[in-house]
Structure formats: structure tokens, C-alpha cells
């Protein structure tokens, strides 16, 4: 019962907030009128950008600008991390980092993944945390919003997709920064530390000296949640009492995880001018989210397997790996929210979830479009939409069309390529590490659970999620290099390919719609889209799921 109320509070609250936020996103990202405050900001951004913000770009130039910007950000972040021992804001004297870890961390934060093979409080200076990582948490999220805006413009039939350098500033300064300030303030009120002073040295009652790490947490946390980044200030992420002190901050954090991804859908609908279509897409995502939430929360009410046979009270659910201040329901709820979107922050240990509950976060990352990352979630969904439209369009007896543009070989090719890339990174990576010491040598568990750990790590990297199943000694050169590469490829391929689709659709002659054309704003299409997502996801990942969580689950069911 409490769990249901909690789901209602979080999902309902986020949905309610997403609607006005979607309207605001449209206003900020794609201003319609030529005067007014949005236009004034526009002139400011163009002045800041100088020559780079000159002309509007077609999809190719837009992608080149996006990639170039990200390459520069990668370089800056790499340099800051590599030189942190000589840079200021290092009160605790953090040492140099190992090369492959710097690569992995830079790739991780540039790609909005925030997979962490380090513990922030142990390894990173405040300068690294703020100037490198937090900065990337802003601009990597802004990159996603900008990409979605551009894609929506293409699907609205505009020949040019806008200017990336203007869009990324709009997303950073008009969307993410104000929201982060509001959220950070709320978090400080909720008891979260916000300081640039070093760790506290305290003497306990036993007379032992204890070092208590702290830092500019509220600022870091706000953008970590809002930008579907998920990279924690501390190693234990939002299970740490400073990073998530109370029930209040927990609810607020969970809402912040799904808020912008939800609003992205509305922004998409407003730019393409198809709110009913956006509603259907939103409903499909919501159905998947609710199904996963229900499954995860229900399965987590069962006791952990280690306790199952013990003569103790079993009615409080699986508390292994959970924070007692949140209980057995808030953990799986967060786990679902953080993996449906590409956030990746955690407030419980996913490794300790019951096997089937552990399957739910995996499924979230495999589909990666149940709201998904800010901006990119809707972009991923677009790939599914293209395929659903293609098959459904044929079934109604016409050459398939989407938003009045005919879907032909080029679009299908690009869409399935994006699909294939995601599957390749996850299954290929898992296969490579499951049969070599690179993976098997780092496992802390054997059998199906160990397999899940490897599978989870690659799923998290490829979905740009960043959460970890843990139980894996993942700070090794093979893991750092492999996941670093996967994160980068899995970030930019699924942005560039859909933009290419939008660019090629924009060039097509618009077709008229009639009773004979497939309507993408009906419940029937919603069912078709849902079936497409489930089928493609299930058919691709079912064997892996069977060998991991399902096998583990069935092992213990008598």
C-alpha cells in the first residue's frame, strides 16, 4: 500500500510537472516569435557564440558541430582529471589518477553516462568534481536536449535543423541551470551539505579518529539527477546519507530523475505540432514504466534468498543492500526510474536485488526509451517509432509514412543500424568478457549472478546509464577501455543516425493524410509501438536474460 502511494506520488508528481515544463522547453529551445525574452536570449547566445552561431545547419553540419563540441569537452575534462594534483581546489590533496581510469571517467561523463569506476570522495579533487565532471553533467545533458530539438525540427519539415551552438547554450542556461538552482536549494533545505571545505576529522566516542568526506553536494546532486547523469559525488551514490539524507530528498531526487525525460516528449510534440501523437508516445512510455515499477516493487517484497529458509519475519521484503531509512519499496522504485531513464544514480545496491527485480533495471537499459535520457530517450523512441510505422504502415496497405513523410530504405537502414549497435555493444561486450579472464577474473560471484554482473556493466555502458550492478572489480584496464569505448560509441551513434533520418525525411515531399493513412495518434498505434518495443527488445535480449537473472531466479524457486 505504501509502495503504491509512493509510486503515485513520484510518477504522478513528475507527470504533472512535466507538462508545464514541456511548454517551457519549447519556449526556451525553439522560440517561435522574433521578439520577447526568448529572442533576446537568442541574440545574446549568438553574440557569445560568435562565428560558430552564424547560419542554421542541416543535419550533417549540426552533427559535425555537436561532435566537435563534445570532442573539445572530452579534451578539457581529460586534461583537468589528468592534472588534478597540480590544480587548485584540492584541500584533501588527491593524487594522480591511472590513465585508463581517466579515459573511462572522461568518456563516461562526456557521454552523459556517469559510469564510475572510482569513488569520488577517495580519488577526485573538488576541482575535478566541479570543473570537469559537473560541467560535463550540464553540457552533456544539454547536448541531448539540443539533439532532440534538432530532430524534432527536421520532423516538423524544416529544411535546416537549427544551430547547435545556440541550442546547447539554450539548454544549458535556460533549462538546466535554473532548474538545478531550484533543486539544489531544495536539497540544501532537506539537509544536504554544500561546502568547499575539506573532509572533517572527528574523534569518535571510542577515541578513534574518523575522516568524514563532504563537499559541494547539493550543486552536484541537482544536475546529476536532472540531466540523467547519475554520477555520484560519493562512491555509494545516493545511498550515502549526505547525498540523499531523507525521505524528502529521496522523493525529490526520484522525481528529478524522470522529470526532464518526460518533458522532452512534450517538447517534441510541441515542435512537430502533434500533441496527440506525443500523448500516445508518452502513454506507451508510461505503460512500460508502470509495468516495470509494479514488477520490481512486487518482486522485491519477497525476502532475499539467503533469508528465505530462515525462521524469521519475512513480511518486510528484501532489505539486503537497502537503506533502512527508505525501506524495501523506495529502492526498487528508484532502480526502475534510474534505468528507464539513462540516469544511473542508485539509492540501493542493485547487486542485492532479488533476481527478477534485477532483471527490471536490465530491461530498462535494453529498451532505453522508457522516457530515457534527457532528449536522447525520445530520440531512441523515434527509432522504435520508425520501425513500428514501417511494419504497421505496410499492414494498412500503403507505403509507410511518418508525420506525412514516406519511410523508405534509407530510414529503415539507419534505424536498424542504431538498433544493431546497441545490441552489439551489450551482447558482444558481454560475450567477450564472459569467456575471458578480463571479465571472469573480476567477478565476486559465480554462476548466473556473475553473468548478470558482466551483462549489467555493458548494458549500463551502452545505454549511457552509468549505474553499476557492483560486485565487480571493474577498475581494471580492460574494463576501463572496453566500457569507455562502448559509452562513446553508444552515445553518438544513436544521436547521429536518427538525426540523419530526420534530415532525410525533412527533404521528402510531404504527403497528404487521409482515412487510409496510418494515424500515429491512436491507441491502436500505441499498442503497435509497444509491441514493437517489447518484441525487438525481448527477441534480442531474451537469451541473455535467461542465462542471467531468470536462471538465477528459477534456481531458487522450488
Amino acid at each position, binding site marked *: 500500500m505504501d509502495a503504491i502511494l509512493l509510486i503515485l506520488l513520484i510518477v504522478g508528481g513528475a507527470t504533472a510537472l512535466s507538462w508545464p515544463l514541456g511548454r517551457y522547453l519549447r519556449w526556451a529551445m525553439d522560440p517561435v516569435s522574433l521578439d520577447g525574452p526568448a529572442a533576446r536570449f537568442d541574440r545574446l547566445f549568438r553574440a557569445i557564440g560568435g562565428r560558430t552561431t552564424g547560419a542554421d545547419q542541416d543535419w550533417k553540419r549540426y552533427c559535425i558541430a555537436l561532435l566537435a563540441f563534445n570532442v573539445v569537452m572530452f579534451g578539457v575534462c581529460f586534461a583537468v582529471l589528468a592534472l588534478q594534483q597540480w590544480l587548485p581546489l584540492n584541500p584533501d590533496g588527491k593524487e594522480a589518477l591511472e590513465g585508463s581510469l581517466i579515459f573511462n571517467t572522461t568518456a563516461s561523463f562526456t557521454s552523459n553516462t556517469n559510469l564510475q569506476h572510482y569513488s569520488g570522495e577517495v580519488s577526485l579533487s573538488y576541482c575535478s568534481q566541479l570543473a570537469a565532471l559537473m560541467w560535463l553533467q550540464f553540457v552533456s545533458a544539454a547536448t541531448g536536449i539540443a539533439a532532440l530539438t534538432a530532430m524534432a525540427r527536421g520532423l516538423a519539415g524544416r529544411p535546416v535543423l537549427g544551430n547547435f551552438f545556440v541550442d546547447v547554450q539554450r539548454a544549458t542556461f535556460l533549462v538546466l541551470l535554473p532548474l538545478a538552482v531550484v533543486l539544489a536549494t531544495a536539497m540544501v533545505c532537506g539537509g544536504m551539505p554544500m561546502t568547499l571545505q575539506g573532509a572533517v576529522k572527528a574523534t569518535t566516542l571510542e577515541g578513534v579518529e574518523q575522516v568524514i568526506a563532504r563537499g559541494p553536494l547539493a550543486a552536484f546532486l541537482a544536475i546529476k539527477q536532472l540531466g540523467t547523469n547519475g554520477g555520484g559525488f560519493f562512491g555509494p551514490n545516493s545511498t550515502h546519507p549526505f547525498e540523499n539524507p531523507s525521505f524528502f530528498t529521496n522523493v525529490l531526487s526520484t522525481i528529478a530523475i524522470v522529470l526532464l525525460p518526460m518533458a522532452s516528449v512534450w517538447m517534441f510534440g510541441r515542435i512537430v505540432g502533434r500533441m496527440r501523437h506525443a500523448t500516445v508516445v508518452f502513454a506507451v512510455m508510461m505503460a512500460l514504466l508502470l509495468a516495470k515499477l509494479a514488477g520490481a516493487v512486487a518482486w522485491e517484497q519477497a525476502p532475499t534468498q539467503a533469508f528465505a529458509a530462515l525462521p524469521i519475519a519475512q513480511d518486510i521484503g528484501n532489505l539486503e543492500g537497502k537503506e533502512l531509512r527508505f525501506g524495501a519499496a523506495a529502492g526498487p522504485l528508484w532502480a526502475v526510474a534510474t534505468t528507464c531513464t539513462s540516469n544511473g544514480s542508485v539509492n540501493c545496491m542493485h547487486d542485492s536485488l532479488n533476481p527478477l527485480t534485477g532483471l527490471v533495471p536490465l530491461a530498462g537499459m535494453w529498451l532505453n526509451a522508457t522516457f530515457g535520457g534527457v532528449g536522447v530517450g525520445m530520440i531512441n523512441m523515434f527509432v522504435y517509432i520508425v520501425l513500428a510505422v514501417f511494419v504497421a504502415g505496410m499492414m494498412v496497405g500503403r507505403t509507410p509514412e511518418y508525420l506525412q513523410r514516406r519511410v523508405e530504405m534509407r530510414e529503415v537502414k539507419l534505424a536498424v543500424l542504431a538498433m544493431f549497435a546497441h545490441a552489439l555493444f551489450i551482447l558482444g561486450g558481454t560475450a567477450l568478457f564472459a569467456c575471458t579472464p578480463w571479465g571472469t577474473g573480476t567477478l565476486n560471484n559465480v*554462476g548466473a549472478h556473475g553473468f548478470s554482473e558482466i551483462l549489467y556493466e555493458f548494458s549500463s555502458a551502452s545505454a549511457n546509464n552509468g549505474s553499476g550492478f557492483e560486485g565487480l572489480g571493474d577498475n581494471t584496464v580492460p574494463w576501463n577501455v572496453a566500457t569507455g569505448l562502448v559509452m562513446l560509441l553508444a552515445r553518438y551513434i544513436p544521436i547521429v543516425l536518427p538525426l540523419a533520418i530526420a534530415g532525410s525525411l525533412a527533404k521528402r515531399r510531404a504527403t497528404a493524410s487521409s482515412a487510409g493513412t496510418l494515424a500515429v495518434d491512436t491507441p491502436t498505434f500505441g499498442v503497435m509501438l509497444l509491441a514493437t518495443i517489447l518484441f525487438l527488445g525481448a527477441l534480442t535480449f531474451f537469451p541473455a536474460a535467461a542465462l542471467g537473472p531468470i*536462471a538465477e531466479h528459477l534456481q531458487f524457486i522450488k
Partner: protein
Amino acid sequence: MTTKPVSLFAAELVRPALADAFRKLHPRVLARNPVMAVTAVGALLTTAALFTAGDDLGFVLQLAVWLWFTVLFANFAEAMAEGRGKAQANALRAARAETFARRLRDDGTEQRVAATELKQGDRVAVAAGETIPADGDVIEGIASVDESAVTGESAPVIRESGGDRCAVSGGTRVLSDRIVVRVTAERGQGFLDRMIAMVEGARRQKTPNELALTVLLAALTLIFLLVCVTLRPFGDYAGVQLSTPVLVALFVCLIPTTIGALLSAIGISGIDRLIRRNVMATSGRAVEAAGDVDVLLLDKTGTITLGNRVATRLVPATGVEPERLADAAQLASLADGTPEGRSIVVLAKEQYGLRGRELTAPHATFVPFTAATRMSGVDLADGGGRPRRIRKGTADAIGRFVTEHGGRPDREVLAAAEQVARDGGTPLLVADGGRMLGVIQLKDVVKGGIRQRFAQLRAVGIRTVMITGDNPLTAAAIAAEAGVDAFLAEATPEMKLQRIRDEQAQGRLVAMTGDGTNDAPALAQADVGVAMNTGTQAAREAGNMVDLDSNPTKLLDIVEIGKQLIMTRGALTTFSMANDVAKYFAILPAMFAAIYATAGAPGPLARLDVMGLHSPESAILAAVVFNALIIVALIPLALRGVAYRPASAAVVLRRNLLIYGLGGLVAPFVGIKLLDLLLVALHLV
């Protein structure tokens, strides 16, 4: 071309198709279809594994055999579809048997040459009993021509120089008279040659939608290849050695073999269905476009209405007995051989009991219709010597006629005539000397059932536009009666072309029919242009389809066939994908039953065997056999197309999702279970 119905699996079609199925194992042929090509590679790998199979020989042998069957069944499906076309091509080829031509030199003398030597622009003379050597236009003379070789219609048709009936096809035979033909298409590119190439599928190129679907299927194949290839290291991790034949079996079951095997058969049979209705498409692309059509431009005459106007009503002037009007109208029309004239005689007979009379000279002098007088009629020398001059014609002409004969135009009659025109009819006034007797109402008769067809088209989102030379008033009345969505009155060829461009500019696909030379630009501009076979060579070249029956109503059938073609592809793709769920549940437990097993109990994944199959071998074999047999089971569906009922896209999608999506999900669970029982009963595993 005769279209005698041949049953789907007639022996004369099946036997050559079986042979072709083996012939199509040639790597170059297989490479055209990526899904079946990798299936063949899988079969090859399994066959190779026979040498290292050891104890499993029986099992691997059966797997290999069924995998080869899967490929052969796909080939068979394609061969069946092609075979139906080939039978027709052979009949056409007979008509193209070597002929000689009499080429005319510039000085008018004749030169005997082989038909193959004819060049474009050559003039040839063809006399009665000779075969026309090549496609061309009649430039001299008139002849009756037997075109049954091309159209299957045995009644001869008239071909004459100039006008819209000048085109002749090579291979047809002149029955009477002598004509001179200017060759328009060289040997090998003529109409008959194009037909043969089309029905044989030799030149068949993949259409845009087919290409896109092929890419989708190839990509799905690639994803499943990834799934199956990674299963081996996954198995290694879990401590189970997966053999190549088992992995190949899973792979072939997962990839979309059903739609992959039937894809080209669907395309060929779509064209075949058109040919069966005597429509020749110049490309598969045109058939596909037909399914996308948003607007149909239909000529009124012949498509919406019966060819000719018919007298439907007589409106007598005040004080005139209806019988008197009927009598005069009939007299005026007795010698009128036009269909309209005949219909007046019939109306008088049926409504007023007046039998047609034999009027002979010297009592009667017939006055034929001329463009100058715009009326026709009869002059009667009565017994008393007082001559009667009866005329029927347009209001103007009869008005003048009455005045000349000392009478006055009757305002009431003129008003009645106007009313007739407003109702969509054509008024003919009847006068006897100086007196207007009344009005004959001639009306277009809308074809029976056409209104329902248009309503069906509207349901699937297709608008109909009627094209007519009539004035807007008449056009509006007929449009309302026939139920078209819009009309274009007083249409000229230029207006027609403009209308097509306007519709296309708004993103609509336009289909039209046409026959005259002045239709050619519009036919070329339209996305689907159906030329009538009776039309000019120019029209036939401009359109992308030719209707051999010259029946413009067939455009509606063409649209249905196009829709059905794409629908069949979508339905089978959905079916194919939905099938995979059951196959996973059959094969995965069989593969991994042993992993993580504790002593004495089966492994955890054995519980995924929800169908309760006999053994791992029987489960895998049952899935592979099901996968192969479903191809054969669906060949009739691929050749006939899925059931087409006109409805809106939403309804069609819902229905097809239920039948092919849900059906595809459930059917293999049942099928695999039954096959498993059968395999066990036959002691094959």
C-alpha cells in the same frame, strides 16, 4: 492472353516449380535474398557437421535435411509465383513467332524483310491475313484487327489512321483491308516483349518498399546472428558446449525466414493478379504506387456512367397529348442510328406502347443530324399530301426551326428544357412544323454499384474526382448521383494535367485512366496512369499500366491489388516476428536444460519449457520443422494476398494485428507441440 482459372497447386504448375526450386540453389540466385542466403549457409554448416556428429548423427542429419527443405521451400514459393507467369509468357511468345514484313521504300515499292530488322520509323504494309510485325501507328487505311493474342478478346477491333484508334501491337493479325503502319518500337522493346518480360519476372526489379523491407529483414538477420554467435561464449561461461547444428537451428528459426522466403513470391503474384485482370503494369513500382493512391481522376463516360446517354422521360407541352409527343419523338428517331436515337425509340415503345414502324421512301425522307443544323428528323408525305416535318434537336435549333415554319417558341417548353439541363440531363426539343411538342430528357445512366465502390474508396481514404466535358450544372447533378467527391466540368486536357499537378503539390498520389493522345501528358504526370488498350500508342507509352480490356472502372481493382500487395508483406512480416517467441521457448530450454543443474534435478532453465516437449532433440527439431512447413502453408496466402476489405487504416491495422500478430504469437506454440508429438510417435527422435 487467356485467363482461364488455374488452381493454385495445379500439377502443370507444381512440377516445373519443383525442378526450379533446386535450380535456384545456385549461389548467385540465392544471394539476391539475404535471409535465404544465410539459411543456406546454415544448412551447409549443419551438413558439414555431419562428419563430426558421432552419436548425434541421426539428429543432425534430420536437422540438415529440414534446413535444406527450408531453403527449397522458399525457392519453390518463388518458382510457383513465376510459373504462373511463365505459362502466360509462353502463350504470348507463340504470337511473336518469326514474321516477315513488307517494308515500304520512299518510292512506295515494297521490300520483304524479317520483322527483326525493322527500325523505328519504318513504314510497313500489312494486308488481310497477315500479322502486324511490330508495334506502330496506322498512318494509312482502316482495318479490322484480331488482337486476341494480346487481349484474349476474340472480337476484332477497328484500327484506323489518325484519331485515337491508330495504335497496333506487334503479333496481332489484320483480318480485313490493308493498312500502312509506321513502326514505333523496335523488336525486343515492343509491347508484347514488355509483357513477356514482365510476366516472366525476368526483368523484375525490387520496388522501393520491397527494398526497404529487405533491408529490415537483413538487419534482423544480423541482430539474430549476433544473438546466436554470442550464445556460444555465454554457454562456455555457464559450462555448456553448444554445438554448431543447434546454434544454426536456433538462428534459422529466429531469422524471418517466413517473410524472407515469400517476399519475392508476394511481389510476383501481385503483378500476376493484375495480369489476371488483363492489366499490364510496366513495372512493379507502379503496382506499389497504386496502393498509395489518394485521388482517382475518373472520366465520366465509360467509368462512372454507361457510355451513352439514354432517353428517360418525355415532357409534353401544355395541350399536347403525351402520346402525340411520343409518336413524334419516335418518328424523328427511327432512322437515327446513334445510341441516343435508339433509346428514344425504345422509350416510346416501352412507356407508350408505340411499336417501331417501318417507314420507307417515298413517304418519308430522313433528315440526318449535321453539325450545322444541330437537329435531325423526318419529312413525311401524308396521304392527304400535307407534309409533316418532324424535328428533334437542341433548344436553339428547334427554336429557329419553329420560327421558320410560322410558329413561336413555346416558353413553357423552353423552361422545361432548362429544368432538364439543371437536373443533369440533356434536353432534346421535338417540333412538328411550327409547333413545339415537348422535351425529351436524355440522361447519363450511372453504372450500377458504382456508388458503393466510391463509398468503399472513401472508407480507405481515397477521393474520386469526375472528369467531364459537360457544363458544371450537368456535371454537378451526375456527381451527386454517382457519389464522387469532386468533379472537373468542361474539362480540357490542360485542365486535367493542371488538376493532377495541384493534387500532387498537396502531397497526394494521383491515378487516372486515359486513351487519347491528348491524355498522354496527364497519363505521364499521374503517379499511376492506366492507358486503355484501345487508345493511341502515345497514351500507352505515357501510362505505366495498360488495361487490355479498356475498362476504366478497373482502376478501382488496380488500387485494391496494390494495397493488398503491401498489406500481405506487412502481415507476413508481423507473423514471422511473432513466431519467434514460441521458438525461443522451444529451443532455449533445450539448449540450456543442463546448466546450473543440481544433482538429480534438471537445471533451472528446463522450466522455461512451457510446452512440455519430449526431449531437447525433439524440441529443436520440432521448431525447425515448423519453421520450414509454415513457409509451404503460407504459399497460398502469399500468392492470393491477404483478405482485403475496404476499411479505414485504423480498422485494418487492428484486424491485421489481431490475426497476424496475435495469431503469429499463438500458432507456433500449438504447431511445435503437435510436431513434437508427431516426431516422437514416428520414433524420429
